[in-house]
């Protein structure tokens, strides 16, 4: 059913349709509306049977999900930012134990300095944790990816993170087609666990594993993700057949077939990028884009074949590997290794800085002219940065950087952008 609905509410409704049996919630902006929505749905008896548990921390939230999943219940939680870091130990544990939990990440920056706005640093910090990571471009895709995520998680017995841009998607009202219960039931069968805490057939889960077997356990986690590279397109295809919508899959090329410049990105910024690509293509530029929907496992082959004819690749990413540069770009570089193509990293939108058409247009023109550096920071206020560097050089006790920068930038409440 078509609805004009907030992203978080749409995600909550999608989760509800997946018949979760245990939902654990700990509030963190911008994830709150999702779990609030689910809590109300459970209270109203719209999700049944389901246990909605308010816990004392994100660490507990995922731990409850771990226990519930190991005991055979379809388990869900959601978090963001600091919350994801606080549960980091359990994040690795859930995947190490092979428990098919689905978790929404309302992508948000990581502090300090504390910042509630969107970027991808949180989920990318967990890229090696063994969780599958799917990135939604729109709220429709966020809804659809959650339905696919449970299927994917349970078929492989691997946990899945569905990453949804905080505020930009979670708090945006837009048109979303919410599927019918019967449709979801036909796509997503009941959870059949591979391992179960069952008094009739007692098993030990979580035993100490020494050097003699640890590598093999880890290898199999990798093997399962390699299987996911095959399964994800199949599930997306089946989804399209049943729901009539193209959602998910490994990658999504856009006007990139014979483009000289291809822009690569994760998540909602792909929408803005497509608008700019259309505009520049119409003006005669040879440019296209590539959305990476499945970031873990990283679809090396698909990315390589989508990029192999390009003259240059521009990775616009909302993340920064401090001390080296891009995170996504590093993986893209590996995908095109040996093809001798420049891969430019453009760090953009950190801490919620808007990625505007204006800025992208200028960026792509410079890319087209071959003027991009290896690593760039989109819309960085260089004057402010230089001012602070000068301050640090001038005095030993130059004070806290973040607060100094805020002084330089001035009052934000009076600014539109």
């Amino acid at each position, binding site marked *: 059913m078509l609805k004009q609905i907030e992203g978080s509410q749409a995600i909550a409704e999608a989760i509800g349709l997946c018949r979760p049996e245990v939902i654990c919630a700990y509030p963190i902006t*911008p994830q709150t509306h999702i779990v609030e929505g689910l809590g109300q749905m459970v209270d109203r008896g719209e999700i049944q049977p389901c246990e909605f548990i308010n816990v004392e921390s994100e660490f507990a939230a995922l731990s409850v999900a771990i226990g519930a999943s190991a005991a055979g219940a379809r388990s869900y939680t959601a978090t963001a930012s600091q919350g994801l870091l606080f549960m980091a130990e359990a994040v690795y544990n859930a995947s190490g134990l092979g428990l098919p939990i689905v978790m929404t990440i309302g992508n948000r920056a990581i502090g300090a300095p504390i910042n*509630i706005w969107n970027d991808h640093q949180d989920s990318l910090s967990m890229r090696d944790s063994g969780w599958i990571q799917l990135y939604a471009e729109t709220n429709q895709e966020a809804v659809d990816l959650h339905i696919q995520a449970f299927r994917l998680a349970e078929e492989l017995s691997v946990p899945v993170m569905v990453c949804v841009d905080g*505020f930009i998607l979670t708090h945006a*009202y837009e048109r979303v087609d919410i599927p019918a219960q019967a449709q979801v039931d036909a796509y997503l069968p009941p959870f059949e666990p591979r391992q179960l805490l069952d008094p009739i057939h007692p098993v030990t889960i979580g035993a100490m594993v020494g050097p003699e077997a640890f590598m093999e356990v880890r290898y199999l986690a990798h093997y399962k993700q390699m299987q996911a590279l095959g399964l994800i397109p199949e599930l997306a295809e089946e989804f399209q057949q049943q729901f009539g919508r193209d959602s998910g899959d490994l990658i999504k090329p856009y006007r990139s077939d014979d483009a000289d410049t291809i822009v690569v990105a994760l998540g909602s910024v792909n929408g803005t990028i497509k608008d700019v690509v259309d505009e520049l293509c119409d003006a005669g530029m040879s440019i296209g884009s590539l959305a990476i929907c499945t970031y873990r496992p990283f679809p090396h082959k698909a990315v390589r074949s989508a990029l192999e004819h390009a003259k240059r690749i521009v990775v616009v990413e909302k993340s920064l590997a401090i001390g080296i540069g891009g995170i996504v770009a590093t993986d893209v570089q590996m995908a095109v290794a040996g093809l001798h193509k420049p891969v430019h990293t453009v760090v953009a939108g950190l801490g919620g800085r*808007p*990625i505007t058409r204006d800025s992208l247009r200028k960026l792509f023109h410079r890319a087209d002219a071959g003027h991009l550096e290896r690593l760039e920071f989109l819309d960085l206020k260089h004057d402010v940065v230089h001012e602070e560097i000068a301050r640090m050089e001038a005095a030993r006790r130059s004070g806290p950087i973040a607060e100094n920068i805020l002084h330089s930038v001035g009052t934000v409440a009076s600014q*539109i952008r």
Partner: protein
Amino acid sequence: MFQVRIHGRGGQGVVTAAEMLSIAAFVEGKHSQAFPSFGSERMGAPVMAFCRIDAKEIRLREPVLTPDALIIQDPGLLHQVNLFEGLAERGYILINSNHSLSELGLDTFLQTHPGERISVIPASELALKYVGRPLPNAALLGGFSALTGLIQMEALQTAIRQKFSGKIAEQNIAAAQAAFAQVQATLPGGNPC
């Protein structure tokens, strides 16, 4: 694509206004997108919300930088925030105030901006009268409907009933209708729709 930027203060229903506007557009079969300025602002702080309306899917995710219409829920912001930044040359301006434009110090604006695109309505007063609380958002959307003709009152009523329930919804609809009538009466050419 038609872009709207709504300025107000935390607690004034700025975000709800943008959401109701997007629902109204949806009801009319259009694509629309509403989102807040994503702050952690508390009550009273300047806040913004945005709404885009289009006949086709909206992919753009930047804030509304070049609005086709501005809704200003609190005229006190006129002198604190650069509200008119990026406004289209013939963009609509709807201000919640019981003062005139000249009293608001906007005389100079009138000289360069087409008069039929500007309207001032006492939306908070209307809200007090019909709803009992000075929450001007529904009334302003009624005024917006009259000023721009972009959405019809019928769709707006449906949207108001989605965000509010029962008596409160009907009271807000009454406020919106009163605002619609007021704006329509003051427009030089009457209702453009």
